[in-house]
């Protein structure tokens, strides 16, 4: 890896991080995905996103435990039973419309499902899969 490439790449990651932190209010799902992808430095994969979402990662819950395996309709909280509105943005305009809210839920829920925060690449993967789900 050449030095200039590395510099360019870390600059791009820095820029993406700044972009994400500035998107504290309204943002489109496509913009959020672009920011996560830029931060990851590699293209998003919907297939990887679906796999991450639907499988267990050594813990009690997967993402699907609350959101359903196909989050195009309401799920229900695995602990409390409270209905959770559809997650795929094409089915619920409130989803991935706010960068701060998106970051908050990724932080909490990745911690519950994986026992750690998700990487930018993982967030880009999941969001890219959710964006493939259309009515």
């Amino acid at each position, binding site marked *: 890896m050449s030095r200039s490439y590395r510099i360019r790449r870390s600059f791009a990651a820095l820029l993406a991080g700044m972009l994400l932190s500035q998107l504290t209010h309204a943002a489109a799902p496509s913009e959020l995905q672009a920011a996560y992808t830029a931060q990851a430095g590699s293209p998003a994969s919907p297939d990887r996103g679906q796999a991450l979402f639907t499988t267990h990662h050594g813990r009690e819950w997967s993402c699907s435990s609350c959101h359903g395996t196909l989050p195009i309709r309401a799920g229900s909280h695995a602990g*409390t039973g409270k209905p959770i509105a559809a997650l795929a943005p094409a089915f619920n305009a409130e989803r991935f419309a706010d960068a701060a809210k998106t970051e*908050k839920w990724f932080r909490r829920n990745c911690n519950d499902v994986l026992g750690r925060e998700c990487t930018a690449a993982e967030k880009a993967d999941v969001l890219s899969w959710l964006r493939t789900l259309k009515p």
Partner: protein
Amino acid sequence: MMMTLRTVTCRVLLAFTVLLGSGHIAHADGDQRATHLPPLPKYRQECASCHVAYPPGMLPPESWQRLIDNLPRHFGTDASLDAASVKELSAWLTANAGTYKRVRAAPPEDRITTSAWFERKHDEVPAAAWKRPGVKSPANCSACHAQAQQGDFNEHNVRIPR
């Protein structure tokens, strides 16, 4: 003359109804009044995403304080929030917490559902009913109390799913 009499009768009836209604609210248990408190928008937004907006009056202040101090480990889930939100919620929850007799003692694990008053109020509910798919957990108030989200836990509106 008949009209006037009818109007008077109507007014008396109306006044009586209003009196009955307000009397019901004024003389209800302390917990009834506490449950009708409109939730802080932040509370509804942050806490009621995952569960019913439990009325603050159902736990004593020290329970709320412990819960709010431990949001990253909230009954097995990460419910962490930014510092400003934590501060706002903490102030509102402790200010509106239950201080009347039956809520004064912190329940085991700071769970509303382990409070003595909760167990007493639900002692007619068969153990199996809590496990039904439509209920899942005693924490799922709205499974049976359809108006729970609005703070209405009146037992006359209870419908236990089959």
